């Protein structure tokens, strides 16, 4: 009997490094999955088939681009048409950005905020009515230590993650009268294609400042989400959990 049997878990950015590990972890515990990603691909189709056959769970994939407000709206309409109560929403999708201010384009600022914050806000707002349905559930937001530490080059990406942290705290209070918990996970740099997109220099400098001298594995981050989503974390609310191995 899986811990998430009869529970519905919705994961955005499910085709990314952490997203795939999260999907597997919840599927292994019997969850019905609603997975969103920017676009379908043969590799993602294989991944979804694998989840269904290996764990015998229902998986509903949806594809929409988080830079497009109307596409998000249509995608959410389709998700709500499933008529499923969502027990866990993981706002995991995000795009990287690393540049010092003189080399930061305003078009990039808008795009990173749209994907990393506005889209997450829109998704959460729209799905709230299906999350509150029976008064239990949780929302988990992808933050980052970049949204807390204010390191060089993070004026944009870090600000989007700081916004996610604030949304987490505010929403945890706004939903306080229900049994819905809202928390955030703030990873350090994690060994995923997302980290590769930041470039070798950024990866090397993150490893340097890490007390443990390495990046996190996607499993180490997913484990934290999994714990926060479970009843084991029933009294943790409005918190931001750093998963960075310690910083020098």
């Amino acid at each position, binding site marked *: 009997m899986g811990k998430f049997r009869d529970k519905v878990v919705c994961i955005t950015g499910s085709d990314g490094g952490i997203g795939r590990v999260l999907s597997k972890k919840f599927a292994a515990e019997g969850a019905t999955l609603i997975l969103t990603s920017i676009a379908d691909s043969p590799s993602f189709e294989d991944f979804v088939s694998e989840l269904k056959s290996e764990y015998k769970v229902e998986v509903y994939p949806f594809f929409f681009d988080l830079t497009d407000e109307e596409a998000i*709206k249509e995608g959410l*309409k389709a998700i*709500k*048409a499933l*008529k499923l109560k969502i027990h866990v929403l993981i706002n995991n999708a995000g795009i990287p950005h690393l540049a010092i201010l003189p080399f930061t384009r305003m078009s990039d600022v808008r795009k990173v905020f749209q994907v990393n914050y506005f889209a997450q806000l*829109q998704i959460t*707002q*729209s799905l*709230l*009515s*299906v999350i*509150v*349905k029976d*008064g239990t559930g949780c929302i988990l937001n992808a933050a980052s230590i970049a949204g807390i530490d204010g390191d060089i080059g993070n004026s944009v990406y870090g600000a989007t993650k700081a916004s996610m942290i604030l949304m987490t705290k505010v929403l945890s209070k*706004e*939903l306080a*009268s*229900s049994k*819905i918990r809202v928390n955030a996970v703030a990873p350090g740099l994690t060994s995923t294609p997302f980290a590769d997109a930041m470039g070798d220099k950024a990866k090397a400098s993150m490893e340097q400042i890490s007390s443990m001298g390495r990046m996190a594995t996607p499993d180490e981050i997913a484990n934290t989400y999994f714990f926060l989503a479970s009843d084991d974390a029933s009294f943790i609310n409005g918190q931001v959990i750093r998963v960075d191995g310690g910083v020098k």
Partner: protein
Amino acid sequence: MDKDQILGTVSSIVAEICGVEKDAVNENSTVGDFPAWDSVGHLSILSKVEETYDISFEPEEMMEIEDVKDIVEAVYNILQK
């Protein structure tokens, strides 16, 4: 379905979720009138209304809904489409 019928159903939903007698609910009942009609209670009411009528409110529509009258109007308009 006419607005009076919708009003009856919506009032029952509000009464059930807010834990009050149906007689205590009228078309002017609004968020904050009953202790359980807070922001979460509001979402629960709208969610139950959606389920009952097999409809889906747009986020923009939800933002305009403040009282029972608004809910009835929104449901009626959707059912007319």
